[in-house]
């Protein structure tokens, strides 16, 4: 059995601990008495994924076997998660490819001819052909691309339909093809508890009109945290929307989970606890450190982004959405949950080079905030690891760098909006609509590979809870101008950051380091 997660108290014998630092790493000595929270070791993967998939499709949860749902002459649509999952991208073959190949074979056997595959990317960027090929595999790609394998376009008035309002008055929209299909099969990959379930359809195939109902500051401020769906207003809203969709169209959900083996063997030291490092790991670390210290950012990035994760499939469930998602969440929690006792004055987090929105692109400052204070900070259940008014310390170089193709609206968000204010509420009321309806961003989202005009706002709202909760936020090693623009403080070394934090939380603060990725979910008592 895999070793569960652990909380280790720093004593004289504790080796320095790894901090992710963008396209680089830092090894930091934490003060005596500090706690380090480690994720569980990777669970053992399912030995025969294909068999598991077949089994899941044959014996779905609370639903009929898939075979019985397929019939000749039907209109079948397969929607699948985009490349924001998993991170880093999975080494081929992608689980989604395995599932979709199985589904398509089954459909072909049943004589279904009208099959469309849609990348359910919501307001994310369109993927390149190559990126899609990586997800669906060569076989599907060469058969279906580009006429029957294409990407959702939330700004195409022709391709989307309005479904109605939920009981709470939220608008619901859906991709037209999906709405008009006899059966929609959603192929999902759930890496973190936020993903999957009703959220898949409710955001993946929706338009700005539907997504803005829950992607807003008010909802996010009452999602504590959005990594634990029962406590998340975001998910409650998605469930309401999803139920309306399920009433409109027959959806068959297939959800997969993977373990947390996020790094290939070359970066094994990132996967392992420092106490477990072998001589080889030490050497790899030293080599990597030397390389990242001197290499130019663009070169480092190309090396890091070429990394593929050797994830192993830990579960595949199919059938009715609620039943499936419950099983999925259980599998995810098994992999990432760690019990942590009590809150702490200071939380330290190393922000890695990659987040959901910068695959094959630099992590721009707004995304650093989204990743560090959005995703990583919110990996908790019950209460944040950080006490209210405590200090969050992140490590990231925070360079003024943007991918002009993928993140044009982020550039303007940084240059115009953040120059004016960093308050999420104010930003939402003053700027969101203007960006969302900007014809240029709409064009870039539809025709190029850009995130939607509203997307930088969501990235910023994602961190709204953390910015409200923390008394102070310090970024170690960041570009000073950039960090100030983001509204935070900047420190050169971790020691300085602790020194600065003491001004807020007092002398001899308690410190907890969340050693991720690999991802962990802190179950705080």
């Amino acid at each position, binding site marked *: 059995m895999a070793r569960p997660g652990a909380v280790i108290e720093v004593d004289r014998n504790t080796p320095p601990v790894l901090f992710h630092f963008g396209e680089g790493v830092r090894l930091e000595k934490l003060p005596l008495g500090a706690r380090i929270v480690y994720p569980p070791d990777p669970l053992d993967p399912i030995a025969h994924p294909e068999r598991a998939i077949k089994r899941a499709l044959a014996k779905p949860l609370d639903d009929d076997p898939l075979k019985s749902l397929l019939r000749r002459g039907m209109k079948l649509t397969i929607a699948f998660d985009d490349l924001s999952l998993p991170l880093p991208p999975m080494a081929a073959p992608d689980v989604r490819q395995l599932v979709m190949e199985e589904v398509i074979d089954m459909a072909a056997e049943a004589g279904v001819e009208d099959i469309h595959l849609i990348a359910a990317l919501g307001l994310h960027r369109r993927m*390149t*052909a*190559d990126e899609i*090929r990586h997800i669906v595999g060569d076989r599907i790609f060469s058969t279906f691309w580009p006429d029957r394998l294409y990407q959702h376009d939330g700004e195409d008035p022709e391709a989307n339909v309005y479904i109605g309002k939920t009981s709470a008055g939220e608008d619901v929209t859906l991709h037209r093809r999906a709405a008009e299909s006899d059966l929609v099969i959603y192929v999902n990959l759930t890496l973190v508890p936020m993903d999957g379930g009703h959220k898949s359809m409710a955001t993946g195939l929706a338009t700005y009109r539907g997504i803005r109902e829950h992607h807003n500051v008010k909802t996010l401020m009452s999602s504590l945290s959005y990594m634990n769906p029962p406590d998340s207003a975001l998910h409650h809203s998605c469930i309401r929307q999803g139920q309306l969709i399920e009433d409109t169209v027959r959806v068959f959900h297939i959800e997969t989970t993977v373990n947390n083996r996020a790094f290939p063997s070359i970066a094994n030291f990132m996967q392992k606890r420092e106490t477990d490092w072998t001589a080889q790991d030490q050497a790899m670390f030293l080599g990597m450190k030397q390389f990242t210290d001197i290499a130019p*950012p*663009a070169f480092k990035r190309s090396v890091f982004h070429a990394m593929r994760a050797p994830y192993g499939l830990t579960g595949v469930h199919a059938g009715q959405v609620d039943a499936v998602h419950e099983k999925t969440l259980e599998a995810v929690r098994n992999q990432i949950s760690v019990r942590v006792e009590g809150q702490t004055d200071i939380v330290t987090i190393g922000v890695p080079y990659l987040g959901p929105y910068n695959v094959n692109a*630099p992590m721009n400052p707004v995304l650093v905030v989204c990743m560090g204070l959005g995703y990583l900070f919110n990996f908790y259940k019950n209460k944040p690891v950080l006490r209210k008014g405590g200090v969050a310390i992140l490590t990231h170089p925070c*360079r*003024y*760098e*943007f*991918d*002009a*193709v993928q993140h*044009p609206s982020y*550039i*303007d968000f940084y*240059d*115009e909006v*953040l*120059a*004016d204010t960093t308050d999420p509420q104010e930003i939402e009321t003053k700027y969101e609509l203007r960006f969302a309806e*900007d*014809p*240029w961003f709409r*064009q*870039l989202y539809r*025709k*190029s*590979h*850009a995130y939607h005009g509203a997307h930088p706002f969501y990235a910023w709202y994602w961190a709204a809870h953390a910015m409200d909760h923390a008394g102070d936020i310090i970024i170690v090693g960041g570009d*000073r*101008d950039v960090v*100030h*623009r983001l*509204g935070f403080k900047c420190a050169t070394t971790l020691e300085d950051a602790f020194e600065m934090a003491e001004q807020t939380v007092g002398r001899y603060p308690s410190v907890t380091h969340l050693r991720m990725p690999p991802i962990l979910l802190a179950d705080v008592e």
Partner: protein
Amino acid sequence: MIVEAFRGKTILVTGTTGFLGKSIVEKCLRSIPEVGRINLAIRSSTRRPAAERLEREVLASPAFKRLREELGEETFSKLVKEKLAVLELDLGRDGLGLSDAGREQLRECEIVIHSAAAVEFDNPADLSAQTNLLGAARMVEALKAAGSRPHLVHVSTAYVGGMLRGLVREQAPHDPGLNWRHEAAVLSNLRPVVEEESRRPEILKRLRREAGAKMGPAGTPAVARTTERLRDRWVKDKLIERGRVHANAMGFADIYSFTKAMAEHAIVELHGDIPLSIVRPSIIESALAEPFPGWLEGFRMAEPLILAFGRGILQDFSGLPDALLDIIPADFVVNTVLAVAANPPPDDKPRVYHAASGTRNPLRFREVEDASRRYFTKNPLRDKYGQAIGTPTWTYPTRGQLSAQATTALRFVEAAQWVVERLPLGADVAKVSDDLNGERERLERAVNLIQLYGVYTEVDCIFDTRHVTEIWDKVPSEERKQFPFDPALYDWDHYFQDVHLPTVVRMSRAETVVRKGKQPTGSTAVKPESSSVRSAIERRTGRADVLAVFDVDGTLVETNIVEYFLWMRLRAQPLEDWPSFMAQMLREAPRWLYLERRSRADFQRTFYREYKGLDYEVMKGLGREALDAVTLRRIYPEGMRRIREHKRAGHRVLLLTGALDVVVQPLADLLEVEVDCAHLLIDADGRLTGDLQSPPPAGEARGTLLEEYATRNGIVLAESFAYADSLSDLGMLELVGTPVAVNPDARLSQVAGQRGWRIERWRMAPGNWRLPMPDPRSPEYREAVRR
């Protein structure tokens, strides 16, 4: 005595739009209200009739502020109406261009004060001769023709003796053996000769080459205009030089003192029985007390020097530190002139008076330097960072040494500029080029100052003032207070520290107080950088007849037609063919660089030949791909924002570019704007011929295209905007009301600076620069090549 002499008299003052003439009129009006009438000799200029010039160029001057305040506006205008009259005359014409009424008016004058002159030391020879020499002669002739015998007071200069040593007496000029008529003819007739010379082929060729280097890409008309401007300047420079050399040959420091000396000869010869007094002031500087301390108009002689000293531009200066520098405050000169006017010579022998300080209150050159140093140490000028500028210590080398040093430095800077302007780096060198330009201007100014004024600091003579002192002795003590003109009455220290130097600094508008510092970096406040363009957009919101025209390459996108070509060609060929293709491109590069520099149109024409034989549909597909791979990655976010602002404001937006349709059209489609770009001819097989369908839209063609577009669509160009980065877009920028130079190259930067155009620096989002070649590892590339 003075007041009495003027009581009820009609007087004429010439040169009243000038500093001294204006001061004389003001003093008369204020201190001698008993005067009968003051005629002001004013010429109608091309822009304004004489009466309007009186209002705007004389009475509106700060000199009259005191009188206005003392009398009140109403009494003042009553006084003006009662006492002042315009006598329209033109010293440049024989007979002064007088009307009959004018002649009558002239006849009535009992005192004539002739203070009109072209006082700049570096005026063209013909202008100086006409105004200073012939003007004075014509004045005397006109008086004689009118049959009147007024007392003529001719204001000359103390330096009419040329470069003398020792005591200069107050006596009629001795004959240098020159015929003033001949000299006047020689100098006046120089212009046609020099004009003629300026059209000699080798000169015109040189000027044309110079203009080409400056403005080449802007197109033929722009080059022609520049050539003509350069020729005009060449003619002026030549005339100045000819004048100076001529004066030097005759033993004078400059054309001013030479023509003034000749003028004295002329009027002494011509005056006949007209009583004649000549007042020769030395260097006139700001007034000591009247009408207010520090009254000064225009920079005269010492001011540029003093400022250059305070600004640290003149690190050293030549001259004799112990020589007398004869400076005299303006109000003392005015009083001297009035006192002389009140004392006509008893016979028809002319009297000469020196308005100079040298004998009564000597001032040495070194004392001026010391006074300046003390003043600027206490009240330093500030550089652009707000720091105090230290004062130099002058060592007084010889003029030759100094001038050689400065000239050498100037040559170095010019050479550096030549190199920088030819670097194919575009906007990156603009900053360096601007710096060099500033340095060149500084040195040119220094060289100029040394040439012009160096002589005066080497004059080793004393101007005798016995005649002036005699009059002073006759002035009763109550009038002495009212009309002081004895230089012994004041103290130089007071004059410099409290009157003159503050005046010079005030008039130069130099920075003397510490400004509020720049905002610290990292400040999150919005930079007001483009605020004026933004506000212009806001002002014209909702107007469909406003156009915003954008150049593309270099203005909206950091790329050029070569890079697109490179990308598209590499994209279409297998990896193993890359090296030979690159080698071929490199071979051609120097030729293209040369052509690009000379003329954008020639370059484009030549370069587009490379497209010969390529399939149009394929290129269109590649162009569409280049949009994501090249264009969008290298786009300036600020440019995109600006386009959207214009669209939000309801303006039309047009991309006007010499780039090919295959690469620009996708961008225009995405932006949803109109585009005017280059199209290549296509043959029957759908292949490009490499020839353009119409002349490339570069240089002047841009201007015509834009005008054409404007008339077709009812655009008001004067209210429109243009954004461009290079000199070849000049035709387009010149046409619109709000031109914006975006990341200008060195040459456009200079032009924009001269014309006060807005300069903006737009940047690519950092971290997006890639070589203009497709990624050979990408599956798309491999796939495409396999196909």
